[in-house]
């Protein structure tokens, strides 16, 4: 019961986080590629309730930022006029879930632009870019992990169930894949592709590469489970009654791998999100101006950005709740897996 509750708790956390990213258009106040050329590298604006005169406002507000006198990149708040934060107002066009054209945004300012996480070198809103960037990064992670698990599952099952030379061959190939320096392989692969890759192509390329590279580990795990499952009494019994290989795999053996697979998925997804970020950080991911979490961080490769604009690090922090969520889910899967262990299921019945 307790296990089930923590499980649900993590699912809700992840659901909310993903919901925000999926509905990025609604939660983000601005178009992620729109450049506000008057305000590059603007620091994050603070939300206030108490104004400069000490009056309490019901509605949170921000102060516009202006350059501090005799400085070229230090900003201070212009406290003459508070700009209240408006909710559910019309703004830039976007498509919710990719098809629903809308203009409604969760929040925004009326006469001023509100930059909760500051702006980047081109004056683009970091908060909007973070949400939209999550779409690319998280989706690449999910899809990549899905592909990996599918490949790993099929190969592991074949190797474990049929054994013999197939097992040896597949496992040697798996070891080869584990040993590959995949980051450098990617550099080599990128060199052979055409110069200009559209964002969509780049996205599928990353997903395909991530998916194809990492299957060895889940394959070995699945093989182990299949290996032990196929020697169990009820499997032998079924085979004795004349069950075919396909039936045995489908009905008795592969269901045993489900808890391993789910745990693996929860561990792999954050890993793959991180991998996508690494690729984009190095310039192998989706091209500008499309945001992804790795792209957002790639500005940090410049020393001047590293020491001058602390808010450029914020996208790195944003992934922490996602990772915690997935890892929490993984551990509760493991506990849940223990409840559904084969013996307890059989003896409990």
């Amino acid at each position, binding site marked *: 019961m307790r296990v089930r509750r923590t499980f649900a708790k993590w699912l809700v956390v992840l659901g909310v986080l993903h919901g925000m990213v999926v509905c990025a258009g609604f939660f983000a106040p601005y178009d992620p590629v729109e450049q506000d050329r008057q305000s590059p590298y603007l620091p994050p604006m603070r939300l206030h309730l108490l104004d400069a005169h000490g009056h309490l406002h019901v509605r949170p507000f921000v102060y516009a930022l202006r350059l501090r006198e005799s400085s070229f990149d230090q900003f201070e708040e212009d406290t003459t006029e508070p700009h209240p934060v408006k909710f559910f107002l019309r703004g830039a066009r976007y498509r919710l879930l990719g098809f629903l054209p809308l203009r409604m945004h969760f929040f925004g300012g009326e006469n001023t632009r509100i930059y909760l996480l500051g702006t980047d070198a081109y004056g683009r809103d970091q908060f909007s870019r973070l949400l939209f960037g999550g779409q690319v990064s998280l989706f690449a992670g999910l899809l990549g992990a899905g592909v990996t698990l599918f490949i790993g599952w099929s190969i592991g099952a074949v190797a474990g169930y049929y054994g013999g030379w197939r097992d040896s061959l597949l496992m040697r190939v798996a070891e080869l894949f584990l040993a590959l320096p995949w980051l450098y392989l990617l550099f080599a692969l990128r060199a052979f592709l055409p*110069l200009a890759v559209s964002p969509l192509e780049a996205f599928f390329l990353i997903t395909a590469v991530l998916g194809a590279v990492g299957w060895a580990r889940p394959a070995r795990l699945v093989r182990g489970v299949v290996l032990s499952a196929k020697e169990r009494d009820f499997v032998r019994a079924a085979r004795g009654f004349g069950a075919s290989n396909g039936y045995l795999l489908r009905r008795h053996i592969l269901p045993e791998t489900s808890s391993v697979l789910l745990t693996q998925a929860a561990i792999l997804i954050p890993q793959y999100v991180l991998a996508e970020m690494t690729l984009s950080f190095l310039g192998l991911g989706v091209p500008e101006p499309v945001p992804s979490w790795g792209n957002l961080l790639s500005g940090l490769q410049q020393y001047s950005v590293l020491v*001058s604009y602390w808010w450029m690090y914020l996208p790195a922090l944003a992934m922490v709740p996602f990772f915690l969520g997935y890892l929490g889910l993984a551990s509760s899967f493991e506990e849940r897996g223990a409840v559904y262990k084969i013996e307890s299921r059989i003896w409990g019945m």
Partner: protein
Amino acid sequence: MKKTTANCKCCGIRSIVLLLLFVFVGHQAIAFPQEKIGKEELLVLPGEVGRAGGRLVVSLRGEPKTLNPLIAADARSREVIGVMQADLVHINRATQQTEPALAKSWKISPDGLSYTIVLRRGLKFSDGQPLDADDVLFTFRVYLDENVHAPQRDLLMVGGKPITVRKVDEHTVVFQLAKTYGVGERLFDGLAILPRHLLEKRYEEGKLGQIGSLATAADQWAGLGPFRLKEYVAGQRLVLERNPYYWKSDAQGGRLPYLDELVFLFVPNADAQVLKFQSGETDMISQVGAENFSVLSKQQHGYTMVDAGPGLEYNFLFFNLNDSIEKTSPDIQRKQKWFREVNFRQAVSAAVDREAIVRLVYQGRGAALWGLVAPGNRRWGNEKLPHPARSLDRARTLLKEAGFSWSNGPDGGSTLLDSDGKSVEFSILTSSTNADRAKMAALIQDDLKQLGMRVQVVPLESRSLLDRVTQSRDYDACIMGIASYDADANSDISVWLSSGGLHLWSPSQAHPATSWEAEIDRLIEEQMSARTFEQRKKLYDRAQEILAENQPMIFLASPNILAGAKNSIGNFHPAVLEPYVLWNVEQLYLKNGMENATR
């Protein structure tokens, strides 16, 4: 490792000895025997008198390839060679005028075809061997030899014929030109006079191209510059020492250069240069990007950052206008139909927000650009050249006139379509190591999106970028930057001429592809042989106008020259011409002796 520390100790001891000498002997002598100066015709430099001794450390972005002026093509090699060699007539980087160097004086014949140059007497190479007219003859023989493939050869071809050199006596040579040459004596700037006694044997063996590696033994290499080779540590540094025979002195008769040693540290990139300078490991820094400049300006501990004003670098966008069918793919040929349209190029130019580039890329430390002559070049710019403000409306009108149309896309944003109904999409190449140009590309991408063009930015390693543009010619558009090496118009000649290698939109043409390129060729050729500055300027102005009308290069912006030095460095006056801070290296000195970088 041991060796290097021992060396350092040695230097330390030597500088202490020098300092002691200085203290005891007092001002006049400064350890240079006076009677020698009497025999030699030294060049006396005006300006602040410094004190002798010490070492100066600067960083280089990567290792120079060679010390040999005959094969040096990269900027780093040229920078190092610049302080080891000297020329007959030199362009003063501060005044941008020519002044005597190894040549004491020169005379131009009334017909403008022969230059009589008189060498200074009693000059010696850095290994102590005397310089005479034979060295000059040998030098020009080598530069003009087709088998040597010296990059200087093209400069010495006037009117299609090589310059001839004749010796009159030990100290006088006459240069004979086939045609009058507008640039005049500026020609001699940067042409290092080579030591015949060291190179003649290798030249006759045909092995000149193989000598002058950085690992050359110090006694096997000599020049007439202020510094000579001392030590090279692969991957780390190049140490040069004072040339005791250098031919310049300060106003009080003290022989230059002041510094005992000049050290070039090799670092991988611009950020590493900034870090080394910030930590005090190097004494000077130049070619600083605007963002790094403001980082360095924020906390000036013992150093000063200087904005020397607009330089001669121009950044521009250009489209692939190459003609050769067999080299371009069908896809590029299809896109070239747009690129060849003058209206299309003008529309792109009208849509580019140059002010935003200056503000966002250079943080205001630069200037918007509408022509090839950068604002740092005060004499050659054409003031009448139009500087149209950004106008998307004008861009749209131009495109409409050329038969382009717009489709109303699903998002309300529209896509630009050509006359065949195909959407206009292309990619822009930039160098992946140049953050400034990558930023420009991102801004232009957004500018052109507002015209409905779909542009992708492709960062590429700079060598493969150059290879694509000049060799395989497999690209749509590209952003590049060129820094003129001289304020004279002729320094950009290979950009102007259709046969030039830097005529980037369609380099090294056998015949000019268009009538306006032919017209520019004619103007530039005529300008070369015009005698007066006014005549040349008029022709050059016209060439600039034609370029602006046709927009083969869409000029973007020009950065200021940003540099910095420790406060202990005297005579630090960054110039807008290369080499920005080392141009007066012989006059640089350390104000309080020992307090500079130790390595």
